[in-house]
């Protein structure tokens, strides 16, 4: 059951990602990205990290992607123009993808831990555990990230503010 669900949502995730690149209309690409986010959340849930899963849905699918859609609606972006494509991409595209995939799989197989499935709950799932980790082990990274976000907010305010001297 577990494996079946993993394969199902993994397939959704990859399918969404491929569709995201293939689609020529911006809104369809954005919708595929939502599918990717949603199936990623379900994969986190299968790993027993329910807090991370729900936060993934709230932040990525519920907030960030809404802004993407908002911008697409506001600018009324149409179909993208298709370039002719370079000959290098035509010749080496599929073999290159194949080789890259093989190298990736080979590296993953080399670094595979022992033949052991991780049971549900072995990872840091509940919100209180995640909170403890954030405020003890990863405190520096957490605070530095918050300063980074603050800088981004200030940048947005500076850009959005009407200039008084003009």
């Amino acid at each position: 059951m577990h494996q079946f669900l993993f394969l199902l949502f993994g397939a959704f995730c990859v399918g969404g990602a491929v569709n995201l690149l293939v689609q020529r209309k911006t809104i369809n690409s954005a919708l595929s990205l939502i599918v990717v986010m949603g199936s990623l959340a379900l994969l986190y849930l299968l790993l027993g990290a329910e807090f991370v899963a729900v936060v993934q849905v709230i932040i990525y699918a519920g907030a960030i992607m809404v802004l993407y859609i908002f911008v697409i609606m506001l600018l009324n972006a149409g179909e993208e123009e298709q370039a002719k494509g370079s000959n290098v991409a035509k010749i080496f595209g599929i073999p290159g993808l194949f080789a890259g995939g093989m190298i990736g799989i080979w590296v993953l197989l080399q670094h595979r831990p022992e033949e052991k499935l991780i049971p549900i709950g072995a990872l840091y799932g509940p919100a209180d555990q995640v909170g403890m980790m954030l405020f003890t082990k990863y405190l520096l990274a957490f605070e530095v990230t918050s300063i980074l976000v603050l800088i981004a907010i200030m940048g947005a305010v500076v850009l959005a503010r009407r200039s008084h001297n003009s």
Partner: protein
Amino acid sequence: MSALTFLIVAVIKIAITLGVLLTVVAYTVWLERKVVGRMQNRWGPSRVGPFGLLQPLADGIKFLLKEDLTPPYVEKNIYLLAPGLALIMALTSIAMVPIGPIIHLFGISTPVQITGVVDASGQASDINVGILIVLGITSLGVYGIALAGWSSNSKYSLLGSLRASAQMVSYEVSLGLSLVGVLLMSSTLSLSGIVHAQLGTWFGFVPQWFIFKGQFVAFFIYMMAAFAETNRIPFDLPEAETELVAGYHTEYSAMKFAMFFMAEYANMVTVACIASVMFLGGWSGPPLPFLPVAVQAFLPLVWFSSKIFFFLFLYIWIRGTLPRFRYDQLMAFGWKFLFPLALANVIVTAFFVAIRA
């Protein structure tokens, strides 16, 4: 409990909850027409059945039989997807809501909650991030409206859905922050855990609900943000009929329009459920020891449904009372008033929780 029993119980619970929810949705429409009618000194529906009670049925038949037209030049796939998305998101979140305590029927004990189970120690337990799932589903509900407006290829619809998505993203922040105080006090994210944190009374009759435990500011923030989230008056700018014809569902007809309509009312019910679970103790209430035991068993459901009724009536009452905000007022109210107030509430609550710990 074996897997088969679990499955059967779950299916029965889903069927009953969905049936009750859809009935409540249909009769909230009737109640709204009736109450607003009385407020405006007229009768409201009175022709179909006694007191117009069969009006929802007649409306349903009308929606099904009307011509269902799809205008040309719409973005067809998304146009068809949007109403379904809106309705599914509106109906799903009820699964997390604890409607009542554990009941014992035919030798099976189960809590009156779709996602609830009885754990090994005989206590009711549910998903331990329940409230976050409800917030997540609510935040996905924006897509139904946003995509409906965009795919309709009409300027009224587009303006309506632009307004809706900006408004819902803005008020979601205050909505989430207003719940943080309650979560700090109950130190759990599970909805049935939050109800259990509010059991018990002061002086034997005043229930220990979070609204009485110092979260009344949060309650008012929540109610205002929730009105905005459900696009109800005074925040109904996405479908402001005096400016935008009907806003995001201008181009929808028959059953597709009815799906948006049902989604709006189902969202109202969900918001009322969450408000009563978070602030008014869910199915708990003051004890009434003088009632016979057989009646006592139904008390939790009576408490819960009367709280829901109170909130739905409040929605209708406010609709009959208040005018609509201007759009800049709406944004200023959300960001400059509700948001700082919600932040202040979180800080003050955290301070008191830390002192007590």
